[in-house]
């Protein structure tokens, strides 16, 4: 099953530990320089022809970005998530648009939303969703949506709420 595939692939690539999430879904990690050759191998030799998604997770407190490349072998109905960890500072990753042209869209979004660069990816520097955005990439954990909203928008007047416990303390205060 997928564990055998993992063992087999591990002989070729420096894979990290295997996380078996389900019988049909596993996650593995790999140092980022080996990513594109691993993906090519999985695509061409192991039938993982479908790039399901590519996205990032911001581990702000560790100073890292995690990129998750989710691949699917549609004939075997297996999924493998390949994780790559990048230093958050100046995060750059090799583009995989040559493997899957559609990856360019994901990479363009990651550049815009997380500030992760994919040099050579078509249109990677073009605005995607946020035309005219001038703040830090908003999907980074250090971008505070609430603060942004409070600075940008005004609240409807007349709203105020009382905390039940404090309200009761005020009313029942018996000197203690």
């Amino acid at each position, binding site marked *: 099953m997928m564990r055998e595939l993992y063992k087999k692939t591990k002989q070729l690539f420096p894979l990290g530990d295997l996380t078996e999430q389900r019988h049909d879904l596993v*996650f593995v990690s790999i140092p980022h320089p080996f990513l594109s050759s691993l993906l090519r191998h999985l695509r061409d030799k192991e039938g993982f022809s479908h790039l399901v*998604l590519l*996205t990032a997770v911001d581990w702000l407190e560790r100073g890292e970005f995690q990129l998750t490349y989710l691949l699917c072998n549609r004939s075997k109905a297996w999924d493998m998530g390949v994780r790559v960890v990048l230093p958050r500072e100046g995060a750059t990753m090799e583009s995989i648009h040559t493997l899957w*042209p*559609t990856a360019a869209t994901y990479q363009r979004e990651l550049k815009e939303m997380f500030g992760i660069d994919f040099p050579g990816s078509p249109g990677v520097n073009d605005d995607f969703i946020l035309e005219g955005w001038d703040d830090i990439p908003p999907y980074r954990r250090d971008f505070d949506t609430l603060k942004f909203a409070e600075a940008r928008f005004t609240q409807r007047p007349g709203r105020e709420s009382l905390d039940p416990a404090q309200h009761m303390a005020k009313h029942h205060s018996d000197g203690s």
Partner: protein
Amino acid sequence: MVYQPDRSQYPQQRADGSLDIDLESGKYLKLWQGPQHPGITGNMSLELTVCGDEVVEAKTHVGYLHRGFEKLMERRTFIQCFPIVCRICVPEPDFNEYCYAAAVEELAGIQPPERSDWIRTLILEMGRINSYLMFLGGQAGSLGLGVVAQWSTYVRDLMLDRFEELTGARIYHMFILPGGVRGDLPEGFQQRMEETLKEIERTLGDIEDVMFCNAVFKKRTVGLGYIDPALFNPYGVTGPNARAGGVAKDVRRDQPYLIYSQLAFEPIVGQDSDVFARADVRRRDLLLSIDLIRQILAGMPKKGPVMAKIPNVLHWKIPPGETYIRGECSRGEYGYYLVTDGSGYPRRVNVRGPSYTHAVALLERLIVHVNISDVAGLMVSLHTYPPEIER
């Protein structure tokens, strides 16, 4: 008589593959189709570069509906995300509810009761019918056949009535809670559903007569927007768009979720991989959904809980982990990638909507050499919904 463009007018390709378009030359014109355009589903726009009537390059522009749902969810507790997710896809919101709930259940180790799986499946198929009905109206309308939209909207409204009595809402149902579903089927539901299904079947017969057996519609759509099956994998093409090209892939059968393994069906497949074939696959898939709903209502266990015991949602923490839940929605593979870090909030939610690949890279490729008047028809044939692109 096949339209033959004058190739001498075409721009040269640069070394990097981009086109050398000189707008000053007077040969080319930039044209915006959208974000408000009757041929565009939702708020999206296409920046077309045309040469005469013919598109030589197109760029998809999204962001008009961006509300940052994925980010918002990082600031909401697991239960608070539940009312948000449905908004990521208006015509077929239930996939968001299901995928999110299933992802949370998997990472939190909750097993929803069996009956809730049946009801969830029922809801997903009801939503699929609605989505296809909307598509049929849109596809016909994009080619000037307005009456189909009127009919399909009418029967879609009947289905919304069924949604309303089952879930308490018409559009955003907010019914599939992590742990199960919010309620049982109302009394007499099966019978009223049957009436609705009959009316849909009758209407579909009419639609077949005026749309699919229509010389004009055929002339406009046969051969238009052909997707070479070789492109399916590189461009992440899934769902009816791939099935219309002969690929019998359907998550419901390949990786059965909920109770699909207990239903009898085969994926609906087409041959020609063009606009007509895609529309026809969807029409037949709609009929399949009607059949599936009948199977579900007949085969569903009559008694049993519909909601599992869940922890106090006000401070529900989920252990660190990550998972991906997918389903076959009316437009292809819909999925949720959920990462948890042990806190009371999702670390990351990534929504994989099929339009993400269909409406951008694929559309930008298919649209080249297409006549302006066919752009809307082509675009609709990919059945894209912008909110799932920009979330």
